[in-house]
């Protein structure tokens, strides 16, 4: 019979808390975030040459090929290192990343 109590209730809660804290740290504490309206405006400005940035779709290639935000390039999270050349050499260029969205 399979052992059910590998992760206990309090253990699972703690794990979830850490996962949520971890995500929050990436998305809120360490990096600025932008809204849909801001991104839309920035893409319009980029189209008219008034702004320059790289928009990275970090989803799997299968998902990207199905649907993506116009003007974004695909660098799947799982292949970030091997496709890093797509980021260019300008380390000060603004890079905006996105994936599927809130969970």
């Amino acid at each position, binding site marked *: *019979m*399979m*052992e*059910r*109590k*590998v*992760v*206990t*209730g309090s253990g*699972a809660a703690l*794990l*979830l808390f850490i*996962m949520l804290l*971890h995500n929050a740290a*990436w*998305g809120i504490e*360490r*990096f*600025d*975030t*932008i809204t*849909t309206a801001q*991104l*839309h405006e920035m893409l319009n400005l980029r189209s008219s040459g008034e702004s320059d940035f790289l*928009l*990275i*779709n*970090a*989803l*799997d*290639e*299968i*998902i*990207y*090929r*199905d*649907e*993506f*935000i*116009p003007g974004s390039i695909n660098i799947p*999270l*799982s*292949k*970030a*290192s091997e496709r*890093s050349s797509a*980021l260019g050499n300008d*380390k*000060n*260029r*603004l*890079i*905006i*990343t*996105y*994936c*599927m*969205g*809130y*969970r």
Partner: protein
Amino acid sequence: MAVVIKALGFNKIKIYNGGLKDWLNSGLPTEAIAPLADYEARFVSAEELYAYVLHAEENGCVQVDGKVAFTLLDIRTEPDIESDSNSAVITNPCETVTGILDDLQDESFRQKIPKDTPVFVITETGNRDVFAIRYLHTFGYSNIKGLKFGLRGWLMANLPTSFNNNK
């Protein structure tokens, strides 16, 4: 992803947290290269999957005709890339195939996934299951379901996990 890019030396990084979901919900246009055919993905709850696993285990993980009872298709990405810690996996005494979503494009990887017995997709939150299901459906898979809320749903239901260094 931002963490990875920062580690590569880039200084100005922002995150569009709303992602593709918010973009679509705002009615803004998208583009496609190879859109997947429509197919209604079905999901099981963590409790339903657990009951399935227990039942299969009691029967030696095989069906009456000798075929494998079911397969878990674990295509979580984040634990591998963004954390050095061991990642939790659903405790499964039966068959688990592990990879990433894009591995499904590889025929030799797909051959590991039985076509004629149930397959359950495992992702971090259940967000990406539908893409795996729609993609595999184009290769004749119809007995495949997602796990509602992914591994997170499994953890929230306090169901058994193990730790796998190799995931």
